[in-house]
């Protein structure tokens, strides 16, 4: 089962995107764990992730997070997808990336 981890400034707004992503994953029959945490907890929750997604508020930490987890897929969430809380679109992208 794939472990999808989202990091945000405090994890609040991203948690709502997570709910939408979980619904989308269920609809697609894609088994996975999806959770959001504050970026300050990156060292705690990053290691078990199959993919790490950063919210727009912390996109400036992309290079730093990639350096912290060099063997993992680390990406920023598209601003529009995040703003529209488009869990479906983000989930589709994640499935595609993890499938490679």
């Amino acid at each position, binding site marked *: 089962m794939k472990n999808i981890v989202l990091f945000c*400034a405090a994890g*609040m*707004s991203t948690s*709502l995107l997570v709910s939408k992503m979980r619904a989308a994953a269920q609809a697609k029959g894609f088994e996975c764990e999806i959770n959001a945490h504050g970026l300050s907890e990156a060292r705690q929750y990053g290691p078990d992730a199959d993919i790490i997604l950063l*919210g*727009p*508020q*912390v*996109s*400036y930490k992309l290079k730093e997070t990639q350096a912290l987890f060099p063997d993992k897929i680390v990406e920023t969430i598209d*601003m*529009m997808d*995040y*703003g*529209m*809380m488009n869990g479906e679109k983000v989930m589709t992208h994640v499935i595609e990336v993890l499938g490679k």
Partner: protein
Amino acid sequence: MVAFQIIAAVGTARSKYIEAIDLAGEGKFEEARGMINEGVEAFNGGHAAHGELLTKFANGELPPMDILMTHAEDQLMSAEAFGILAEKFITLYEKIYK
């Protein structure tokens, strides 16, 4: 959901402003200013959405005030502050590099 759109827009802006400061720190001033412009573009989207709420308020239509909207406003003011300071940081780094 207006609050999320604001959060995404101004959150992106804030990140761009911080990246701009980092670029200036590396002496890449043109790139830094370009990054500021990207930040401003993102910020304006959030600011415009927020402005619409203020207009509605002026016309007697109460905006939805909940913890998410409070978070959006907080992020907006933070982004604005970072924008102002980022410009000043670039100027400062330019002085250091000369």
